[in-house]
């Protein structure tokens, strides 16, 4: 890695003030696992990193509001989320997703805020959070604002954050009777970056689907909702014919990219299979984290 300066502010305000919004060579670093990969590959050569480590304790709590929403501090390491009884109770799909997200060492260091701000489309949490209707609190020089995770992610490694805005908290609404599943589909080892991710969250009335969110990631430039597929599912009971229509709709609308993990046509077939499996898993409240 090329040499850089590193500053370790002791407050959020100080951290924000240290980030020059007009200088792309100055960035915040949380756990740093993803940023280290970019720096080691020479893709990113910062002049200065603003470490959030010293303010991490104030933003690494997991709590439940009186309304039943789960609030996770942005600096919470992924392993703390994985091992949290509150997360397991509130959103078991998140705890299950963690078991195949990279490996123990990375989960001990990487943070949820970092994973969202980095906006790598291969990450496992963003599609799950979008399916669950999660949002983030963002703080910048002019104050605080909230935003749905769905709106936060705008493109390939791109977010709606200004360069001097930081995510402070992630909010996951009370899920009630919502059922959810995430399938991480890898073509290498089980904990490799996925070729495809499919997250589904839905509510049922009797045997028919009342509302649904279907999100595709990894094969697309960003975690993306499949609106046509959702529409094909809502109001229907999930028989084989419906699932085929849902899967075909997803394949029709997803803009699938080729990469080292598979050709676009191969990933389209993966999506055809896994969209249906993820819907079925959500309905049956199994929720595979990995296949």
């Amino acid at each position, binding site marked *: 890695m090329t040499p*850089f300066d590193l500053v370790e502010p002791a407050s959020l305000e100080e951290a924000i003030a240290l980030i020059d919004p007009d200088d792309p060579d100055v960035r915040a670093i949380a756990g*740093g696992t993803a940023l*280290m*990969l970019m720096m080691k590959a020479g893709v990113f050569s910062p*002049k200065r990193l603003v470490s959030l480590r010293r303010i991490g304790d104030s933003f690494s709590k997991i709590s439940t509001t009186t309304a039943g929403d789960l609030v996770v501090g942005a600096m919470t390491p992924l392993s703390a989320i994985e091992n949290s009884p509150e997360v397991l109770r509130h959103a078991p799909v998140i705890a299950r997703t963690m078991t195949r997200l990279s*490996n123990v*060492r990375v989960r*001990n*260091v990487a943070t949820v805020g970092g994973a969202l701000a980095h906006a790598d489309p291969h990450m496992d949490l963003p599609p799950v959070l979008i399916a669950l209707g999660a949002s983030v609190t963002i703080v910048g020089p002019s104050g605080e604002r909230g935003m749905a995770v769905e709106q936060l992610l705008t493109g390939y490694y791109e977010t709606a954050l200004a360069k001097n805005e930081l995510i402070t908290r992630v909010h996951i609404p009370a899920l009630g009777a919502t059922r959810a599943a995430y399938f991480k589909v890898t073509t290498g080892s089980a904990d490799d970056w996925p070729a495809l991710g499919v997250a589904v969250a839905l509510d049922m009335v009797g045997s028919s689907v009342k509302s649904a969110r279907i999100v595709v990631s990894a094969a697309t430039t960003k975690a993306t909702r499949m609106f046509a597929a959702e529409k094909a599912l809502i109001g229907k009971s999930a028989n084989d014919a419906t699932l085929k229509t849902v899967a075909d709709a997803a394949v029709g609308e997803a803009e699938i990219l080729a990469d080292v993990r598979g050709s676009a046509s191969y990933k389209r077939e993966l999506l055809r299979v896994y969209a249906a499996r993820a819907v079925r898993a959500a309905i049956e409240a199994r929720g595979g984290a990995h296949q």
Partner: protein
Amino acid sequence: MSTAARTINFTLNGRPVTADVKPHHNVVEFLQSQFALFGARESCGQGLCGCCTVLVDGKPVSGCLYLAVFLDGAEVVTVENLAEPGKLDLIQDAFIECGAFQCGYCTPGFIMMSRALLVQHPDPDDQQIRDYLTGNLCRCAAYPEIVNAVKMAARKSKAGSTGRS
């Protein structure tokens, strides 16, 4: 703005230490160059293989993806500290007894991960062992023997702690 080294204080293998570190150096570079500790080594350089595993505040991390300045104030344990000089701890013994390596390059990482695993799951089943060690690669493919070694270490540890042999 300064890329110069700064001074950090931390506990290394039970001893309080002070060292100068440059902001862009990772933990592996730092431990090798300043403390002549070569057990954690960089292999894949991407956090995938586990050869660079060290324990920071009791948790295993990839030394190759961890900035050395972040060790300031932390408690760091490397494979060199598992047992007194000239002795082996029971995980190391179990790896030898089970033949859980051939070339040995990945072994320090597997042993550090196994130690962390046994703290979290003192009596792990096969699935827990495989899940925990999934981020460690052994190119000699001694995986079945490694799983056996972890189970043997767990048994010996349990027997030791209950006073049975």
